[in-house]
C-alpha cells in the first residue's frame, strides 16, 4: 500500500511539473544572439550618438526634451529611429568574436562606418566593416581592440533609418 501511494505521489509530481513548467521561449532575431555584449551601457546612459556612414554623418544629443540633431529637435520619425538604434546598440551582442592579424580583410581598415556612443563613462567607438560571405552578419571592431566581432546584419537597416534624408557631405 505504501509503495502504491509513493508511486502515485511520484506520478502526481510529474503531472504537476508538466502542467506548471513552460518550455523556454524560442528566441529569434537579435534576441537569439547570446555572444559578448558590444557596448557597456544602458539605453538611458547614452548622452550622445555619432553615426558616420560613408560621406553621411549624423550627431544626435539626448536632452531633457528628447533627441536633438545638429542642435535642432529631431522630427518624430528620426526620434523614433534614434531611440530604436540606441536600444539596439545598448543590448547588442556579437554573434562571434575572434582575433585577427589583419583588419583590412574584414573591411575594418579603414572601416566603412563608425558609431560612437558617448556615455557618462566616456565615448565608446564601434567601427563597422564589410558583410560576411553569406551577408548575414557585419564585421566590426570596438575601440581599437584586437578582436573582430560579427554583428547581426539588422544593424544596417537600423542605421539606414537614422540616416534617412541625411545628405552626404562633399569632400573638403
Amino acid at each position: 500500500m505504501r509503495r502504491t501511494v509513493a508511486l502515485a505521489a511520484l506520478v502526481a509530481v510529474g503531472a504537476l511539473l508538466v502542467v506548471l513548467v513552460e518550455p523556454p521561449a524560442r528566441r529569434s532575431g537579435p534576441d537569439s544572439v547570446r555572444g559578448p555584449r558590444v557596448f557597456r551601457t544602458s539605453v538611458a546612459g547614452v548622452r550622445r550618438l555619432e553615426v558616420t556612414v560613408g560621406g553621411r554623418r549624423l550627431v544626435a544629443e539626448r536632452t531633457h526634451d528628447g533627441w536633438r540633431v545638429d542642435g535642432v529637435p529631431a522630427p518624430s520619425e528620426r526620434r523614433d529611429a534614434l531611440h530604436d538604434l540606441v536600444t539596439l546598440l545598448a543590448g547588442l551582442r556579437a554573434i562571434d568574436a575572434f582575433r585577427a592579424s589583419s583588419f583590412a580583410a574584414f573591411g575594418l581598415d579603414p572601416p566603412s562606418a563608425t558609431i560612437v556612443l558617448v556615455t557618462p563613462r566616456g565615448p565608446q567607438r564601434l567601427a563597422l566593416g564589410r558583410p560576411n560571405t553569406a551577408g548575414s552578419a557585419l564585421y566590426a571592431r570596438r575601440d581599437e581592440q584586437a578582436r573582430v566581432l560579427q554583428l547581426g546584419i539588422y544593424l544596417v537597416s537600423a542605421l539606414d533609418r537614422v540616416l534617412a534624408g541625411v545628405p552626404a557631405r562633399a569632400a573638403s
Partner: protein
Amino acid sequence: MSGRAARGWAQLGLHVGLLLLGLSLLQVAAERANRRIDLTRTRELSLSGVTEQVLREVAHPLRITVFHRRGERGQHAALLERMRLVNPRVEYELLDLDRYPERARAHGISQYGRAVVEYEGRRAVVLALPEEQVTGGILRVLRGRARRLVFTSGHGERPPGGGPDTYGRFTAALEAENYLPEATSLVDADVPEDVDLVVVAGPKHDFLEPETTRLAAFLRRGGGLVVFLEPGRLPVLSRWLASMGIRLGDDFVVDHERSIIGTDGLAAVVELFKRGNPISQSPGNPIESGAVLPSARSVEVAAPVPGVDAESIARTAPTAWAMADLDRARRGEQPTEAAHDVPGGASVMVMAEVGEPRADGRRGRVVVVGDADFATDAYIDLLGNRDLALNATAWVSEEPALTGERSKNVAEVFRPLSPLVLTERQARGLLLGTAVAQPGLVLAVGAVVVAIRRRRT
C-alpha cells in the same frame, strides 16, 4: 603496523600499480593502433570502397582546405580525418569562412561548405560534403583533368537529368567521379577527340549508319561505350553490334515468378553474374545483391569475331522467359513455348574489348545492357542497379582504381535478391505466416491447454 597489515597494504599497492600500468599500456596500444568497427546499418561512419581506392593512389602530399560555416566544423573534420587515416599523405585544414575571408578569396571561394583540393600543382574546388564530392575532387586532381562524358541524342534517348525517367542520379554520380556530361548528336560530327566515355541511353529510334561508323571509330581509338537498350527493333544498331559478335535479342525478358513488389510485374531479375568480373565484383563496389531490369531484352555473345573479346557477364534467373512478342509481354500475358517464347535464364549484359591495343595498351571497351530503365532515377536505387550501372561505366572508361582486373572463363556466381526486397510469392508467404499461421498457432495451443485443464478438472 603488523606484518600482516603491511603485507595487505603492499598487495593493495601492487594491485593498483599493476592496474594503472595495464591501463596505460592499453592506452598506448590504442593510440598506436587504429581500428574501427562500423556497426551502423548504412556504414555511414566508414569511407566507401571507391574513396579508399582513390586515396591509395595518392603518392604525394594532397591538401584539402575546407571553408565551413560556423558550427559545422565537426562534420567536415570527421570525414577528412577518415581520409587521412587511409593515406597519411592527405593533409587537411578547416577554416571558418567568416573568420578567414581573405584566405577564401585567395582560393576563389565565396560559399560555405566548399573544399579546395590541391595536388602536385593542380587544384579543384568541390563541395565539402558528401564524401563522393570530395572523392571526385581528389580524382580530378589526380588525373589532371575532368573526363568528358557524352550522351548521344537525337533518337529519343533518356536525358541526363530532370525526372524519374531520366538519368539524373546516374549523371550526378558520374559528375562526382570527375566526369563532365553533355549531350551530343553524332549525325553530323564525329565523337570529339577528348571524349572519354559515350553513353547510349535507351534510344527509341534507330541510329543511322554514319553514327554507328563514328561509334566504331571512337572504339578503335580506345574509347569507352556503354549502351543501354530497351526491347524493340533497332536494325542498324543491331547490325553494328552483331559485327562485334554481340547479338541483341528481339524479345522481352520477363519473370512472373520472381516479380518484384513496386514494379509492374514485367521486371527481369538478374541473379547470375560471372565470377571474378570487374563489373560485378569490382574491388571498390562489388554488387552484393542482384539487379532488377524493369523491361529487359536479351543480349548475348554470338559467334566470336576477330579482334573482339566479348563475354556475357549477367543472366536472369532460370525462372525467366524471353518472350518473342513484345506486345504480349507488355500486356502481362503468360509466356508459352507455343508462342515461341524461350524459357530459362537469358543473358542480358555483355562486355567486350574491341580492336588492336594502342601504344599505351588501351583497347576500346563496350558494355551492352539489355535495359535502359534500370539506370533511371526511378529504379537506380533498387538492389544492385546503381553499382551495376556505375561499375560498367567505370570499366569502359578504364578507371583501374575502380574496377580491378578481368578474369576469363570463370564460373557464374549466384547473387540472391537482397532480403529487403520481397517477391510476390515471399510477400504472400509473409502475410499467411503473420496473419494466419501465427494467430492460428496461438489459438490451437490455447485450445489444447483448455482441453487439458478441463480433462484434469
